[in-house]
């Protein structure tokens, strides 16, 4: 088991190293110099101003030293939590801008991922080999899982926000509240703004997990051990419970595989609802050509996904008896 975790950690560290390197490489080796792009977009007044801006940007990107040194400097700054300054919210440091947004992402993503996974699995297991549910509700699952996150978000916003006028569709809390605080006004306003983005993330996820589990249960019920149990006269409920326990393992691995897609969906959903998480920051960064902010967001997403992956690995080991006892399970690669 120690070997298993050592390998995993090695992979994640390597991934982090590569991600940081990509983050450093892309601005430097893409066609078109980011400094020029920024200057062009900013439309500086007069050549003197342009020159001043250019030298500032060259320095800010650290482009005035040899390339190897630039790379080391980048790491050095990164490990000190310095990701540069945001252009869009100048002169705030990128780290601070992102750390202000992260709580909203966590509040949205963690409940949406966990609840949709749990509910989807339970429902999928329940619907498997149930002719009526299979034919009525599961097609809905397919539609949900095929829906682009932002479109479902748009639909919900339109239906509940515009047509029925039930819920707010913009921001994380009412604009009338000046400062977020731990009081009832803020919390109720926060919940009202939270429910629609949460619902769109939840529904898309729910459909996917339900279908995955339904298919998994059908596989398991056709496996030899199920037929054997059946032949022995075991109650149906018991067989299904075994099938569920076997089916849940690939679903845990599936959650790790889906993380990237879910995060992408959350980014798009936040944009629809102008929800002030990292997705919304990314939109602002793109619209304002704020490359430091964009690269910072990228790193934070990577860190978040790596942490989530590692958590899932730990859970997998706890759930799978094979990895627990030192045997190599399916997810141990």
């Amino acid at each position: 088991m120690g070997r298993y975790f050592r390998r995993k950690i090695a992979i994640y560290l390597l991934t982090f190293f590569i991600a940081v390197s990509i983050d450093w490489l892309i601005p430097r080796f893409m066609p078109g110099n980011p400094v020029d792009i920024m200057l062009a977009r900013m439309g500086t007044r007069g050549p003197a101003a342009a020159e001043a801006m250019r030298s500032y940007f060259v320095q800010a990107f650290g482009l005035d030293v040899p390339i190897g040194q630039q790379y080391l400097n980048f790491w050095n700054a990164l490990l000190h939590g310095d990701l540069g300054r945001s252009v869009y919210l100048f002169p705030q440091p990128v780290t601070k801008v992102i750390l202000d947004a992260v709580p909203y992402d966590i509040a949205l993503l963690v409940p949406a991922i966990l609840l949709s996974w749990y509910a989807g699995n339970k429902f999928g297991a329940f619907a498997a080999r149930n002719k009526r549910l299979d034919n009525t509700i599961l097609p809905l699952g397919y539609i949900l899982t095929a829906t682009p996150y932002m479109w479902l978000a748009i639909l919900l916003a339109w239906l509940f926000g515009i047509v029925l006028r039930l819920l707010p569709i913009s921001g994380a809390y009412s604009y009338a509240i000046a400062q977020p605080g731990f009081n009832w006004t803020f919390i109720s306003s926060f919940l009202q703004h939270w429910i629609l983005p949460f619902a769109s993330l939840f529904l898309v996820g729910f459909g996917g997990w339900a279908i995955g589990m339904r298919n998994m249960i059908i596989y398991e019920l056709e496996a030899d051990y199920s037929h054997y149990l059946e032949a022995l006269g075991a109650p149906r409920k018991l067989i299904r419970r075994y099938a569920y326990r076997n089916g849940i393992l690939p679903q845990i691995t599936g959650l790790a595989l889906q993380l990237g897609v879910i995060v992408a969906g959350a980014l798009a959903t936040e944009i629809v609802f102008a929800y002030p998480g990292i997705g919304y920051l990314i939109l602002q960064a793109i619209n304002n050509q704020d490359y430091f902010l964009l690269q910072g967001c990228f790193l934070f997403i990577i860190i978040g996904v790596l942490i989530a992956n590692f958590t899932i690995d730990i859970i997998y080991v706890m759930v799978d008896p094979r990895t627990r006892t030192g045997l190599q399970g399916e997810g141990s690669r």
Partner: protein
Amino acid sequence: MKKKNELLYFALRNTKLRIGLIIILFFVALTFVGPLFTTFQPLDYVNPRGPEPPSGEYWLGTTMFGQDVFTQVVYGLRATFFVGLIGGGLGTLIGVVVGFTAGYRGGVVDEVLTMITNIVLVIPALAVLLIIAAYLKVRGVLVESLFIACFAWPWAARAIRAQTFSLRTREFVDLAKLTGMKDRKIIFTEIAPNMLSYLVLVFILQFGGAILTAAALDFIGLGPTDSISLGLMMNNAVLWGALLLGMWWWFLPPGLAITAIVGALYVMNVGLDEVFNPKLREM
């Protein structure tokens, strides 16, 4: 020959496969025939009165700027299928090559390839695509598809590696080796035919995945700069307040088209799975 007929028989009888196929064919037909029904160009400002709900003249209404929504959908579908075909196809191809090589060779080659696969697997594709796309001044659908393929292959590689691994140790492969058959011949005549059905399923899922990734990328505002796509339509609709103005005809059709296509692909996938795997057929 008999086997093929049998598969075809179950394929034609499978409701899921039929429904999925009909929807896909409908949209493919719309992509090819649609431009004949419209005299407009997708990005042209054709309606001097600006935004208008669907009418006889503008079938799906017009956008804030008086662009024809139907024309945009038809041309956007083209981009969608293109991304699915190129992005999904290339993603499958890379996955097959990496997975096959890793599973068949084993040893150090497998270790290295599996490590690369796991690394790319963990990195969220959209996050990388975001920073790449943000630095590109001119973006086309082809470049978008290529980049999507670069980050879409890992799960396919992993699944195919596992399949190859289990096939490699079967008796018929051992027999082929004993008879002195060359590696390449074993791969193409002994292993590949047994995996063909699986590869079809992988391709369908890659196809759908590429479409969804492209839609998200376009929606965030990093879509093609020179043409229209369904994701870009939704981006424009949200950006210009179609929600608040109640211009449902602007944001409903593009999302509906994507959902229908990807949903049909998923349903087809399950249908095909049932055709290939007799254990799953409904009794």
